[in-house]
């Protein structure tokens, strides 16, 4: 059963369950227990699985290790402590591993000093960086506590000798579990844990450590897994309340539309500089990597009066070299910095020393993420976590105001946890086959005990076995290229060939290789690199910034991009697009609800001051922010009123507004104000564009935002349907068809094929370039699209629809339209887009839905050539 911890233990009770030497050490160092220690130490010592969620700096890690060290010393007392691994600590970050190593060193050596007769408890780090000599040493004298990463754990499970040392495992700690549950690294780990359990002599105790996350019950199930179809027992220790929070929304100006950008930007830096000056150390989050450098650059100018300012402010992001990052972290720990600017790299729990203020520029897009970031402040217990949200965009202002209200009410948004990833499963099956010959049903049960696979069907499992055993290849080649053999009659499978182990160990992991594409001008001059994910979104004609200059995208071939300089023109695609986080569905719906509420207040004639005041109160916004939000909503209200709409028909959580306008090129943009977040809108817009494309027989463009989406029609083509047309349609089928020829399917399939070991990144000593992977994936995709139920293609679609997009909520929205719970109000063509539509229209083109058939495209092309030839003839004739 998954239960919440109710019982709080006293210092005496806790000390009693610890080994005398540990108790002595603990009471010499600490006068009292931290909240997680009060609740969790005793249950852990009794061998219960525990999930601890608590802010940074509340002694979570020590909570986990106190009991473990105690038990290890007791074993030593009884002469039972052998040269074997008893505890495995897994964290997603190598840097965190090194911190933990050092943090454990302190109690271990101090206990040893205080009680010299006791044996030394050994601990060691093992990651991909660990040299062979150190690994050999670990085999000779295994650490009692092994500190590792999910990937390395996956590898050592198949290491022929070292795995024997893992059979004695009695505790597993998963740190920063909140950052693992939402992605495939976590899925990968969940299977490794079950494989470790299968290997271990006894049932081990699982301890999960997490920052703020919701729903805790699901995360607990992820940690402990399933047995006989039911989740194993787990105790949830939630001490998120251990630190108070103090949040506020700040806008540098009152009018976020008409104030010149230079002025807004100047005031913003001044506002942030003031916060930095008022505090000892400020952590500033931007939403993009490029943003961090920009903020550091500008902020310095406003930090007059701070001595030696160049040394007191630094950037920290994942594009920096490991060496530079380490240097910055050390400075931070020593308290030498006044401000540090980060994108996501400081979200996770490496020990970052003293932070007394967190500033977030722009919206962090989810209540949970906001709290996780703010939780980095006030490192010592009993200090308040202080966070300031600085906004310079009206949608952001509205978003963050509602976010703060929800955070203060303690209503968190739910995390999405990927299910049934068949590519990760394929990796593990190869790993399992390397270990031993398996009874397929037994292996199936093992897999189903991992949370993400609890609903896996036998058919799905078997399809992966069939794929890996080379079922769709010709018989003669199976011996050479099959990774496993599978005997469906006998129901067994095992390793095939001598390469299986090497393939597994050298291709493990779930993070796709980063691709950067080279950009050249038409005359062959190299101008720089772009991320592939960014390229995925570009279409010919788009203008973007690279190296501070504007270029127009012409074409891409393989990993080579051709552009034309467009220095004097404005970019049409923001450079940071690919890094944009999607707004969570839960928060989006609450913003929509809030919009509706304000519209009603305005309609009832409530005075502006009063509404501004209520916005200020709910989100602790400054005057400027509250007014900016109010003005945004009142502008929209007045425009819609002018169109003749009554307040019931204005966009809210119950009404989706649809409007169409014609741009200067004559293209029609049908804008749908569906405030459900980008993941849901991505699914809705593509399905609708596909359906709409069927009606007009042309290719349509889409632009997707958190607040809605636009479908872009070519010149002279008018929309015939709106979002209401999705009622009664099979959304999944439509979406699948819409994805058919898209760049995103090609890219995601490459990732899936690499994870599923169809494209090996490392093979027979060769590393396969991403370029080659990409070309191969395109060919593969063409071929596997004709195989029914091919597991890796199925997974690519699943990943796109469920993890990248949010088809579940898209279905929910369509269901609500069908039931009348949500109404669609279409105002048709209007001369100027409404204020809410501005950000959607500025978005430009996100993707294309291929609809026009080949023949029609060919005929149009032939016509173009005919015109060209006639023109040529005329020119010559003159």
């Amino acid at each position, binding site marked *: 059963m998954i239960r919440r911890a109710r019982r709080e233990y006293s210092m005496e009770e806790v000390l009693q369950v610890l080994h005398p030497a540990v108790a002595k050490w603990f009471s010499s160092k600490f006068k009292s227990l931290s909240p997680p220690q009060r609740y969790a130490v005793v249950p852990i010592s009794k061998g219960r699985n525990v999930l601890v969620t608590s802010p940074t700096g509340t002694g979570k890690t020590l909570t986990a290790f106190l009991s473990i060290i105690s038990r290890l010393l007791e074993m030593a007392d009884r002469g039972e402590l052998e040269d074997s691994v008893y505890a495995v600590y897994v964290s997603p970050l190598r840097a965190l591993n090194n911190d933990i190593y050092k943090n454990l060193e302190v109690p271990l050596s101090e206990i040893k000093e205080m009680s010299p007769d006791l044996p030394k408890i050994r601990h060691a780090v093992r990651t991909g960086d660990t040299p062979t000599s150190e690994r050999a040493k670990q085999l000779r004298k295994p650490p009692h506590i092994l500190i590792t990463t999910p990937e390395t754990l996956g590898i050592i499970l198949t290491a022929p000798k070292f795995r024997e040392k893992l059979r004695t495992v009695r505790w597993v700690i998963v740190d920063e579990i909140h950052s693992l549950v939402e992605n495939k690294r976590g899925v990968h780990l969940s299977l490794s844990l079950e494989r470790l359990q299968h290997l271990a002599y006894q049932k081990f105790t699982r301890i999960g450590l997490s920052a703020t996350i919701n729903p805790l019950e699901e995360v607990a199930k992820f940690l402990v897994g399933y047995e006989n179809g039911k989740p194993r027992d787990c105790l949830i220790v939630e001490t998120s309340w251990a630190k108070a929070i103090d949040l506020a929304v700040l806008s540098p100006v009152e009018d976020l539309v008409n104030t010149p950008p230079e002025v807004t930007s100047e005031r913003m830096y001044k506002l942030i500089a003031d916060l930095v000056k008022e505090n000892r150390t400020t952590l500033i989050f931007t939403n993009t990597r490029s943003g961090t450098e920009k903020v550091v650059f500008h902020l310095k100018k406003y930090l007059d009066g701070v001595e030696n300012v160049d040394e007191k402010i630094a950037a920290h992001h994942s594009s920096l070299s490991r060496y530079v990052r380490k240097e910055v972290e050390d400075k931070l720990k020593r308290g030498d910095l006044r401000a540090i600017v980060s994108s996501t790299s400081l979200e996770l729990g490496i020990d970052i020393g003293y932070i007394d203020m967190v500033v977030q520029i722009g919206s962090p897009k989810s209540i949970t993420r906001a709290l996780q970031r703010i939780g980095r402040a006030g490192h010592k217990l009993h200090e308040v976590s202080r966070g300031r949200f600085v906004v310079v965009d009206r949608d952001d202002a509205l978003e963050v105001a509602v976010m703060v209200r929800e955070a203060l009410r303690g209503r968190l948004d739910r995390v999405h946890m990927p299910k049934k990833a068949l590519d990760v499963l394929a990796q593990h099956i190869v790993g399992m086959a390397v270990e031993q010959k398996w009874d397929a049903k037994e292996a199936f049960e093992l897999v189903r005990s991992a949370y993400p696979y609890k609903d896996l069907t036998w058919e799905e499992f078997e399809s992966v076995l069939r794929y890996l055993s080379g079922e*769709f*290849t*010709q018989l*003669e*080649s199976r011996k*050479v*290229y099959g990774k496993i053999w599978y005997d469906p009659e006998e129901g067994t499978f095992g390793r095939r060939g001598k390469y299986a182990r090497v393939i597994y160990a050298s291709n493990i992991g779930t993070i796709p290789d980063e691709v950067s594409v080279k950009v050249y001008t*038409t005359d062959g001059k190299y101008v720089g690199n772009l991320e592939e994910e960014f390229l995925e979104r570009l*279409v*010919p*004609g788009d203008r973007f910034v690279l190296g501070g200059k504007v270029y127009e995208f*012409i*074409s891409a*071939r393989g990993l080579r991009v*051709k552009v034309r300089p467009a220095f004097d023109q404005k970019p049409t695609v923001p450079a940071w697009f690919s890094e944009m986080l999607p707004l969570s569905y839960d928060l989006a719906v609450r913003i929509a609800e809030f919009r509706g509420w304000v519209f009603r207040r305005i309609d009832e004639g409530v005075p502006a001051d009063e509404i501004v005041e209520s916005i200020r109160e709910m989100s602790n916004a400054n005057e400027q922010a509250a007014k900016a939000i109010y003005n945004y909503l009142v502008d929209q209200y007045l425009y819609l009123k002018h169109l003749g709409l009554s307040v019931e028909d204005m966009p809210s959580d119950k009404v989706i507004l649809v409007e169409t306008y014609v741009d200067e090129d004559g293209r029609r943009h049908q804008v749908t104000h569906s405030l459900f977040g980008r993941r849901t809108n991505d699914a809705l817009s593509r399905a609708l564009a596909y359906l709409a494309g069927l009606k007009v027989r*042309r*290719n*349509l*463009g889409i632009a997707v935002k958190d607040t809605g989406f636009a479908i*872009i029609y*070519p*010149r002279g083509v008018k929309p015939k349907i709106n979002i209401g047309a999705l009622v009664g349609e099979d959304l999944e089928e439509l979406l699948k068809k819409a994805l058919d020829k898209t760049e995103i399917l090609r890219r995601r399939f490459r990732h899936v094929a690499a994870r599923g*070991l*169809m*494209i*090996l*990144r*490392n*093979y*027979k000593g*060769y590393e*396969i370039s991403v370029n*080659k*992977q990409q070309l*191969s994936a395109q*060919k*593969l995709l*063409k*071929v*596997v699209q*004709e*195989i029914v139920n091919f597991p890796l293609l199925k997974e690519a679609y699943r990943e796109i629809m469920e993890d990248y997009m949010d088809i579940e909520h898209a279905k929910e929205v369509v269901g609500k339209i069908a039931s009348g719970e949500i109404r669609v109000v279409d105002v048709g063509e209007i001369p100027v887009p409404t204020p809410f539509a501005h950000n959607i229209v500025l978005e430009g*083109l996100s993707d*294309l839905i*291929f609809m*026009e058939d*080949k*023949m029609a*495209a*060919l005929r*149009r*092309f*032939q016509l*173009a*050539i005919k*015109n*060209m*030839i006639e023109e*040529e003839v005329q020119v010559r004739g003159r």
Partner: protein
Amino acid sequence: MKLFPYGVYLDGLLAVADLHLGYEDALRERGIELPYEQYPRIKKAMLNAIGRFSPEKVIIVGDVKHEFGTALNQEWREVLDLIRILRDLGVELEVVRGNHDNFLIPILRKVGIEIRDPHLVEGNLMFVHGHKPFIPPDDVDLIVMGHEHPAIALRDELGAGHKMKAFLRTKFMDRELLVLPALSPLAPGTDVLQSYGGFLSPVLRSIDPSKIQVLVADHELDLVEELGPLNLVRRAAGVV
């Protein structure tokens, strides 16, 4: 001369180019697992064409197989199977050497076929792969070539595209020159509209694009249609 989406029929002769058999295993050797789909499709395309034209002779204008450095099992198997099928149908086979065909010779020798290197002349027709420069003999009127894998990618104003294979027709040293599309379904082709770097074949590089006619060839639509001279086709596609 009859063009069909995969090749050309000329007076009892059926010519195709660039089969690249064994491509899947060549990729497998590099750690990429591609299902074996190519040969069945090539076989089907060949059988259809033979059924339609009843040729006496089939000429493969180079690159029968893919792997440069060796002859893979798959290549032995598929090449021999193709030859057996043609023989069963009573069709003679001629093979012109392509740049990928180094290790094809032992496979062919096993069934008593001599590879034509560097080209094959049949009456006034010359068949040559095209990876090296060549000079046509005097009595040749038409040269049939492979190697280039020509294709065109069509894009509309929004940037959406379709890729289709193509023939190229031009003149070289006063002879007609016909470039065949690749028969291999795994070779979608080189977009001649975008090939600002120039052609693969040395012979084509010396020819003015305004003198090269582009013919689109698509097996799904089952058509071969003339589009126009390459310079205008490129301009219409908005790439020049």
